């Protein structure tokens, strides 16, 4: 099984690398069909490579967790890896419907970075003994799904700002000519926020319960909690303002990107904390 985990890791690495290269080649190519990744596009293989990479990534996570007897959601090592896997899977699910081909140029390198980067983070498995395991697993699973979805939403928001700027400034050539339609980026970002928000809420509430039961809090934990609340407030504000005040487009994109950045900082804080111990 160890061989399977290692082979899946290396093959996943190559598949993600190939996908990232193909997505960038597609952006740089002169063929108009490349914008959609459609039948005329040479790089219609890019999503396939990403899909294969995601499959191998999942195989690696499952086999490695079986080998180490660590539930994937109970280790930061796996958790980081899983959040990127979720982002890649969500992208593949939404790509065709919302014509998001170009976002693959963000998703594939992120998945590759997280797959490789997770190897260098302390394995830190095991949970705090006095916390209920089931609730803890649910807390981490919800957070991971939320992270994956918010990262993708942040990417959609970023792409929206680039696309909106080029259309406003009437600079229509260059690499940006192949970005997805403005409305598709906006509605994708909205849907991902809607899907991620309940997960984030559950993660925040359960995290608060755990924090109170553990009693003591370090500066890093307090900062993580504060960033978690900030993300929740940002995402909630964006969703409320969209519904009530018709906030769309640029303002919504800024809010979403800010939320995604908070999520990224939380991940970094998890990653750099000493020994990368128990996850909550």
């Amino acid at each position, binding site marked *: 099984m160890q061989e399977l985990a290692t082979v899946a890791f290396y093959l996943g690495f190559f598949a993600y690398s190939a996908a990232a290269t193909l997505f960038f080649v597609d952006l740089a190519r002169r*063929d108009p069909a490349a914008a959609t990744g459609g039948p005329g596009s040479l790089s219609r293989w890019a999503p396939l490579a990403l899909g294969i990479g995601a499959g191998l990534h999942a195989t690696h996570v499952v086999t490695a967790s079986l080998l180490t007897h660590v539930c994937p959601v109970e280790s930061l090592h796996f958790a980081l890896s899983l959040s990127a896997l979720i982002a890649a899977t969500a992208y593949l699910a939404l790509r065709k419907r919302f014509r998001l081909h170009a976002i693959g140029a963000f998703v594939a390198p992120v998945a590759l970075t997280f797959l490789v980067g997770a190897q260098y983070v302390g394995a830190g498995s095991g949970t705090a003994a006095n916390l209920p395991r089931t609730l803890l697993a649910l807390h981490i699973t919800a957070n991971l799904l939320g992270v994956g979805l918010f990262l993708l939403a942040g990417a959609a928001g970023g792409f929206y700002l680039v*696309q909106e700027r080029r259309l*406003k400034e*009437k600079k*229509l050539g260059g690499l940006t000519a192949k970005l997805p*339609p*403005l409305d598709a980026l906006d509605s994708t970002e909205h849907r991902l926020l809607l899907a991620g928000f309940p997960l984030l809420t559950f993660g925040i509430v359960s995290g608060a319960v755990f924090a109170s039961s553990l009693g003591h809090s370090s500066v890093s934990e307090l900062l993580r909690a504060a960033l978690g609340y900030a993300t929740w407030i940002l995402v909630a504000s964006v969703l409320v303002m969209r519904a009530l005040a018709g906030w*769309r*487009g640029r303002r919504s994109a800024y809010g979403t990107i800010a939320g995604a950045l908070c999520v990224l900082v939380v991940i970094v804080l998890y990653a750099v904390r000493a020994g990368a111990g128990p996850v909550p």
Partner: protein
Amino acid sequence: MIVVVGLSHRTAPIDVRERLALPSDAIAGFLSELLAGRVVAEALLLSTCNRVEVVAAGPGGAAAELEPIARAAFGQLRARAPDAASHLYTHSGAEGVKHLFRVAASLDSLVLGEPQILGQLKDAFELAKTAGSVGPVLHRVLPRALRTAKRVRSETAIGTGQVSVPSVAVELARQIFGDLRGRTALLIGSGAMAESVALLIGGAGAKIEVMGRSLERAEKLAREVGGTALGFDALDSVLARADVVISSTSAPGFVVGHDAVLRGRRSRKGRSLFFIDLAVPRDIDPRVGEIEGVFVYNIDDFERQVADTLSGRHREAQRAEQIVLEQVLGWERWTEAAQATPTIVALRTRLRAVLDNELERSMRGRLKHLGAVEREALEAMLDAALNKMLHTATVRLRDAALERSGLDVDRLERLTQAVSELFALDHELDLEELEAAASEDQPDPASDPVPAVPAGVRAIR
């Protein structure tokens, strides 16, 4: 070798082109008439609104055939439209191939890089195949032309961007909204370009609403573009629900002001709004473009975009020409090397026939105890030996063919003549005569106790 005879938008005005153009159901008749003269062995006719061209080849593929073929094609086209004769051009041999490749790659099109020509050429090829006028030459040159066109499209940006104001406008609408189905487009005023944009957007699935100073005129226009008519007093309410506004009035001032768009913004709930202002003087207050989620493009913006696309295509055309040149050179090398092929094939066939005959005799005589497996092994051995024996001869004949364009133009002829004479390739193979002659040359078998059997066969035995 091929000949291209025809006319195009470069050499003939539209009235001449339309007299010469043939509908697709008349092309088979034209081609069979052309082939009936026996000078032309293969032909296809490309008939589009911008060009009518015959691509033809002779039965032998020789350069000497090209002139009569050109005359035959020219004569047939002139018979169809006598006044077109002065507009016709002829491209023969390598020039003909280059012209065909350039046409396929859309380098000779009225709108540089337009994609339709490739489909039209494919259709012409299919029609010719159906008419039975395609032979070995066109079967090779046409697929190569289509491959050249595909290479040009994938390796250069000659096909990117839009080259007309309406198509740029619709492309921009797609970049904002993606799918235009279910969207609402408002057409204010009239004008050919605005109507074209409305028709294109309507064709993409958007609902069209037409507004004019007079409801009567708006209704007439609405019927033409397949939309519904509205009075001008409905402007504010339509601005609140429209996704695209196409404006082309002759009003002296702004028809849509900054405040009108701001008023509709609240009920729009942040939805994007795209103004296509085709009027001069402008209909849309330029300050409208500063509002978030609102995009305003005027006629200058569209024309700048068209000019950028066209100049980009012209830059790319230089790279495309280079690809065409490479492909033509590749074709020339291939056809030159192919000139040695008949001699190589004839030599191989001749030698193989002799070897087969010997094998057959041996299998009936001394080797009759061998089974099917051993026979197969013997045949494989003969093949391998023949390949090795002919390798140098094949390479030298091909080299001689490729050198034809160089200094030693007669080398291929000398070699093919020598091979032909030495192996009597121009005569039917008479195996009995060959055997009789060979037995006279053979030493007396009694004086040679070791049978003349190859080492490989002994090993099998």
